């Protein structure tokens, strides 16, 4: 008999808690369940994003008229729901996809969250979104980039962040704008490390280049653990493209920059696709030979007084650090989700889903360098994009698009000739 008493007590207690929370929360709060890796390998990214989500909730729940056109900043709470507040319920999936799946189920069935968000690692987003789809609860994928998260015919999954094809499209828009300005871009070369990351991004770039009829002079896959890249550099030297795009990890991107200097090869422009070019060891290692190399980031702190600058100040006050690209992309997705809940005017999941599907945020309503937030029928944000930044002296400066640029783009890159 003793074995049955404890579960019974738990059931009663749970029922009481649910009853109580139901009573107090029905009108005033909207519960957002968020699963991120708060411990484990990616804990740093998860914790940084958690802080960003908390800042976003503060902006929405309290009146922040100083933040311009950012949706829901001016008012306290959600105006269409009588000033209802957002309540965040965080859970830690530790980077484990099956745990992410369990937590999504628990958040829906036990915590009764109204919407879900997550999950950093693409593998975890992949499993958790399937749960949300099954229960019919809207799921906002904050920043996971794997292509297969959307496109499974799901109705309840939305993704705010740019993915590989968006980055590829951004590069093409940049190229066509440069061409209009009279820069010569007759061909490009794509150099990629040959695992999933490099291959998928390079595929997307080659696809988009074909559509934009920019010839790809060379596509060079290589292993990121290479100890020597001079053959690749000589191949580039022979093909002589106008822009070289590197999809590389850390040691290899440093090795490329040094080898290019050693073999006296300097294309008019080098673009690094984040990753190795964003590693903290990249700039100290090659700043004096890779002047003018470009990189991407959708987040920019902006000029003092701007909305993004103020958001960064709030984040900095909380964490002591500047907001990073990953957390900022999550924060933007969070704002898009809150905006849809407000427009739905209800916690009814179907109404929230419809509102999400009708989302149409304009660039001036965003904190990120996207062209807007608008979801296609797979749930992917089709207006997601990124800024381009350029290594000038010892740091990256935002140089494109011009409307957001902090300093002028230097073309061709100076490399070491400075």
């Amino acid at each position, binding site marked *: 008999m003793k074995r049955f008493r404890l579960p019974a007590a738990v059931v009663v207690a749970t029922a009481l808690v649910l009853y109580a929370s139901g009573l107090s929360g029905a009108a005033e709060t909207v519960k957002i369940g968020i699963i991120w890796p708060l411990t484990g390998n990616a804990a740093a990214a998860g914790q940084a994003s958690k802080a960003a989500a908390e800042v976003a909730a503060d902006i929405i729940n309290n009146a922040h008229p100083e933040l311009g056109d950012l949706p829901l900043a001016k008012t306290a709470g959600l105006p269409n729901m009588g000033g209802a507040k957002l309540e965040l319920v965080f859970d830690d999936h530790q980077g484990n996809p099956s745990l992410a799946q369990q937590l999504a189920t628990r958040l829906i069935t036990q915590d009764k969250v109204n919407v879900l968000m997550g999950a950093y690692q693409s593998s975890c987003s992949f499993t958790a979104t399937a749960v949300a789809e099954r229960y019919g609860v809207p799921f906002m994928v904050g920043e996971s980039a794997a292509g297969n998260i959307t496109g499974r015919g799901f109705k309840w999954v939305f993704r705010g962040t740019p993915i590989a094809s968006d980055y590829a499209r951004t590069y093409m828009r940049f190229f066509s704008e440069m061409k209009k300005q009279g820069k010569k871009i007759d061909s490009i070369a794509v150099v990629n490390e040959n695992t999933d990351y490099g291959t998928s991004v390079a595929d997307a770039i080659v696809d988009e280049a074909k559509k934009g009829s920019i010839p790809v002079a060379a596509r060079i896959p290589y*292993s990121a653990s290479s100890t020597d890249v001079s053959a690749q550099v000589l191949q580039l030297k022979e093909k002589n493209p106008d822009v070289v795009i590197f999809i590389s990890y850390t040691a290899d991107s440093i090795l490329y920059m040094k080898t290019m200097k050693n073999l006296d090869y300097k294309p008019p422009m080098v673009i690094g696709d984040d990753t190795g070019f964003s590693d903290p060891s990249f700039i100290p290692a090659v700043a004096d030979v890779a002047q003018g190399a470009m990189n991407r980031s959708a987040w920019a702190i902006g000029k003092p007084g701007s909305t993004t600058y103020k958001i960064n100040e709030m984040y900095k006050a909380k964490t002591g650090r500047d907001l990073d690209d990953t957390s900022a992309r999550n924060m933007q997705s969070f704002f898009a989700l809150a905006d849809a809940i407000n427009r739905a005017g209800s916690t009814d999941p179907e109404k929230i889903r419809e509102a999400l599907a009708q989302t149409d945020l304009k660039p001036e309503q965003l904190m990120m360098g996207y062209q807007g937030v608008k979801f296609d029928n797979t749930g992917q944000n089709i207006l997601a994009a990124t800024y381009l930044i350029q290594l000038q002296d010892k740091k990256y400066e935002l140089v494109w698009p011009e409307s957001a640029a902090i300093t002028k783009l230097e073309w061709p890159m100076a490399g070491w000739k400075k």
Partner: protein
Amino acid sequence: MLLIQVIVGGLLLGAIYALFSSGLTLIWGMMNFINFAHGEFVMLGMYVSLLVVVWLGGGPAAFGFTAAFALFVLGVVVYLSLIRFVLRGPMLSQILSTFGLALLLRYTAFWIFSANFVSLPQTSLSGTINIAGVLMPVPQLVAGVIAVMLTFGLHLLLTKTTVGSQLLAVSEDRGAAMLMGIKPDRMQALAWGLSAGAAGIAGALMAIAYPWSPSVGETFGLTAFVVVALGGFGSVPGALFAGLIIGLIQGLSAFWFGPIYKDIVVYALFVALLWLRPQGLMGKA
């Protein structure tokens, strides 16, 4: 012209491989002992160089000698505190002891230096020499020249000097050497010191050209074993030739077939050669 550049690049890379491998083949030649921690010795040589440059300043000569000396001492210490004892054990424990040492050194380096990549600040050795349109980066050139010198030096030491004869005597017959008044422990400690010292110099020279993290020993380690096996276990000149050949094949195949095929070509040729000549190019049958 491009082809000549590829060949020169391949040979310079090969010289680095040879430099990396000379210490490994020395230990095998002297003691019939495979040192799996050799790559980690090179890694430590790289960090010693970094510390010398950052803390004391100084050019390649300063950090090269410091790295060689520091690693020589480490080699002797490793022999006296570890290898001397496992030599009495079975073959398997000999293999596993240096494997364990490799992991210990690698993860200690992770702990102290973190997993971030580091590289030496630009040194006086950072230029490029242009000979009739063929470009030779100075760091690789210096590494290549020193690799050849070091190889000859080690070869002469082993074949022409008393110390060399004593080292060889111990490796051939420990008991008989003792009867001749040679102290085997002292000789073998010296062999470990020389081997690790060579690894230190290799690390210092590689640090000029490559960014690295504590796992660099792993990256180069496999190539080093292939170089030693191809050159013939225990043959110092063999390691030099094998290193140059592998560098050259890698360069040419990467240029002709694409970089992802270069290792396939190298290892296919390696397997074919071992099939024809199992003792390696210059090994004793």
